[in-house]
């Protein structure tokens, strides 16, 4: 996509870093390779190591499109009490196996 739209600046965050900081108890014995993203992206692509539980560094109202993918094992609700409250008030039950 970056090659197809060379006039667009792509910025990404690689959650690899958070495996070392936030989720280290999860994967203490695993051979985690970081960063996950390529080290040789196209010129209009920049990928940064970042903990998705922390604020992004970009300014307000500056991004045209945000694509969030496969974050299901990366965002801890322990750090986001507002999110936990939402889940509970929406009838969500953590012990439920979802389809």
């Amino acid at each position, binding site marked *: 996509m970056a090659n197809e739209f060379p006039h667009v600046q792509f910025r990404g965050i690689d959650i690899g870093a958070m495996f070392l900081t936030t989720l280290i108890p*999860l994967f203490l014995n695993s051979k985690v390779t970081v960063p996950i993203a390529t080290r040789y992206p196209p010129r209009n692509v920049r990928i940064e190591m970042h903990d998705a539980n922390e604020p*992004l560094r970009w300014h307000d109202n500056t991004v045209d499109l*945000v*694509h969030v993918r*496969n974050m299901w094992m990366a965002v801890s609700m322990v750090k986001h009490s507002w999110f936990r409250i939402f889940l509970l008030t929406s009838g969500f039950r953590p012990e439920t196996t979802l389809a």
Partner: protein
Amino acid sequence: MMREVIRVLRPGGLVICCEWGYYAYPPDRAPGVFKFFDVVTQSLGQLGIYPVADVIPDLLAGSGQFDGITPQLYYMPIGPWRADLNGQRIGRAFRAACRRFVEAVRPMLTNAGWSEEALYDIFSGYLHDLHTVSGMVNVYHTVHARKLAL
């Protein structure tokens, strides 16, 4: 994280979220798969990580910051049980990914206190079902929405 997405998006900007849902099969039809994901779900829950794929549209709506919220589901075959050739190819590739997932979660389950022997039984049951139960799918949840213009 959703708060940050809302903050950085410009008014009229687009958000696209794509997440795998958890499996949910009747224990009597695929007991190995059921047990495996039950154990994974419990271990993640102990760390405050819960399945959220199907609540993201509600999360977007609840923020009051988006319109045109469009959730969609895609059913990914596990194994080559589909009649068409492309479906069989995708099913084989996805089943291979499901097999690799076992090794991805092994350290987490070990740290959660599961013994090597118990994990052997759990993984064996899961892998057995992957290769013997026909008709299984995993669900890919997508949703896109636009941030309200000022």
